[in-house]
């Protein structure tokens, strides 16, 4: 896709606005709080710093199958998202992601039913 200068400028603006709004709309920062200069496993810190989140994740299938933090949250760089974008679920759950377009799913996200990190199946 080729962009002229005006188009590119518009996109920058949209990006900045969208990011700003995302930050404003969230209680927590959208950026990862710490610079990860050292190449560690996320778990090395999060097991201690966010023990509840770690335990919920570890106990569920995602934890057992090693579907680790980066899959849903992105890297610790500028694509880090505190609240996962559901397109990230597509790799393994393509049909379910597609079903979010259905009228019955209006106003819902994956996490409306599947509690974050524990991601328990329906009815549990």
């Amino acid at each position: 896709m080729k962009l002229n200068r005006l188009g590119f400028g518009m996109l920058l603006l949209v990006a900045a606005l969208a990011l700003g709004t995302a930050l404003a709309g969230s209680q927590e920062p959208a950026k990862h709080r710490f610079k990860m200069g050292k190449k560690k496993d996320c778990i090395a810190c999060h097991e201690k710093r966010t023990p509840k989140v770690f335990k919920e994740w570890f106990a569920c299938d995602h934890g057992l199958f090693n579907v680790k933090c980066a899959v849903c949250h992105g890297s610790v760089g500028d694509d880090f998202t505190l609240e996962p974008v559901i397109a990230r679920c597509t790799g393994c759950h393509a049909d379910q992601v597609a079903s979010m377009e259905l009228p019955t799913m209006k106003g819902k996200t994956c996490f409306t039913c599947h509690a974050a990190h524990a991601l328990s199946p329906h009815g549990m």
Partner: protein
Amino acid sequence: MSVSRRNFLFTTAAASALAALGKPTLTLAEEAAKGGTKWTKGVCRYCGTGCGVYKGTRDGKLVMVKGDKHNHNAGFLCLKGFLLPQILYDESRLTKPQIRNKKGVLEDASWDEALKLIVSKFKGSVKEHGADSVAFYGSGQAYTEETFLSNKLFRAGFRTNNVEGNPRLCMASAVGGYVTSFGKDEPMGNYEDIDHADVFLLAGSNTAEAHPILFQRIARRKQANDKVKVIVVDPRRTPTSRLADLHLQFKPGTDLALFNSMAHVLIKEGLIDTKFIKENLNFGKVKKVDQTWESYVAFLEDYSPEKVSKITDCPAEQIVEAARLFGAKGRASMSMWCMGLNQRSRGVWANNLCHNLHLITGKIGTPGNTPFSLTGQPNACGGVRDGGGLSHLLPYGRLAGKAPHRAIIEKLWDLEPGHLPSAPGKNAIDMFRGLDEGSIKCIYIMCTNPGQSLPNVTRYRNGMKSKDTFVVVADIYPTRTTELADVVLPAAAWSEKEGVFGCSERRYQLDEKVVEAPGEARADFQILLEIGKRAGFGAMLPYKTPADAWDEIRKLGKDTPYAFWGITRERLHKDHGVIWPCPEEGHPGTPRRYVKGVDPLVPADWPRRMKFYGRSDGKAIVWLRPMAPPAEVPDKEYPYYLTTGRVIEQWHTGTMTQKCKELKTANAETMLELHPDDAAALQVKAGNGVRVSSRRGSFVFRANVTDTCPAGTVFLNMHDPERMCNLVTIDAYDPGSKQPEFKICAVKLEKA
């Protein structure tokens, strides 16, 4: 944490906007989700599980990968698979050929200059020093057609058997095990066996990290049936151990005794299948099949659990329990193993001993009962093992050292009788030793990174770097090997070319091209073809595309135990892979080999339930293999065991995974796993530098203080290009398979 609709939308919008700026990653997925994406079937680039994928392209770019729900992986991918698109788009991609100039610097060149130089060097070397002064070192990541072409170019063109591949470093002992026990290479079962097994014996395999989707399938089987038991046999506690009902932790290298002891218990407790033994088995020792059931039983007398417990440091009761679980009557047992058994100076023996457990219990050839070796690379099985890309092989089970086998290939390739070379080629380690010692002058390295992945790598890096050798490397990114090369060729990557991959379960599947390669990068098939033509071998290489070569490849496998004549190109385009044997077009493929009524190569009137047709009498062999220590064990000077392995976020030498944003910072540094007792003795705290030294080399790694290994054993992963475990590992190899012992050596540790 609840996510409101509003926040969700905002996050999405921000991500989309960033994607449009060409920023990152998750947003490629985001782009794909917007619709208008074209989806094309393919195969994951990474491990030998061979998960089916769909590749999503938009505007000429690969934007997303999702699991193929019609393939064996049922739509699931592990975290590496999902992030695949990023491996194509790092700015460090090689896009122009490079030639090292007189000052020793790589500089851009034209394809014509690079190819001219390669052909003149290789032809010149053949003329001056003989055909065996040149060599090809390929990969279990190359497509079958690429390995086929390199095989033909070097064996029939340059006329040398110096055609080798990196599966020597990972699978050669599994090949040796299958061939010696059953007569032919490759597992006989398939992934579906997982859904039928009641007992899993996971030996020397960190399945959870190295083959995540298979681990998931095992876990699902266990979740669905609480009677399913998992035995893990590994000196180290890994994420795989989470699933273990029983974890046998033993002293590195003593598992030969452990398997013999399990056999001892099986026999003592009557957990054997006497009818199967009588009808289907022979017994052998060293290289001769001259033993009996009685001599086998007598041999095992030395391996009582009590005695073996002392050798292995593994409690006798655990050995007994493992044998009882494995041998329980009426239950199906599946063993799976990987580098822990293969990367050993007695790797073939370790494989044989695992096969023995299945053979004496008759737990083989029925759903859920199978000895199943796991493969590390996507096409080590299909391309290199089956296709004959190791120095001692010819395509589809033939041996380069056997005149009648060469005669068959000469006929199929339309060559004069006696054209193919009879002198044996060099295995991987000897090939790079040859480079170091001067017997090999020119080497072509394709799709692999020996400058990082060979054991005791400094020695071999020196050989590659030497002014007296001419090293060509074709790859997609700069690596620890391209930095040593005289010529670097920019190769097209996965998805920028097409070809066939064959995974651990004998499933052949087509990986389709979906995007163009960047700059001047070319597919390996095209590069080899061009070299062949310029070297004067054009007449024997009458192809334009990989698809053109496929029928010839099918023909090479025809009337062999690998038969896959039925797997046509059309079928590969349509199907989600086919498992061979598949001898006729229209044949559905074979889930279990050697089984009457299932495998088309077993005659309908065969009197027994299985025919191991790789052996003339159709019988498998139980080998009497004694306990043998690793090539190097700790002593006063080097008092620790070093073992090596993998983490889920990275793959092999990290050249692709470390191009993914998410994986660059995730477990990307190789750290030394050090037991708290050892850390205390060395006065080392987490994060401190520790110098790890062996008789071969030394390097400082930061410490990760953890009790995953028992005290006295430390662990490094193999992935980090900046912190290479292979500066320290040993290059001793198995005398049969010639596979090096990456898994065990002796080191000393000092606080740095």
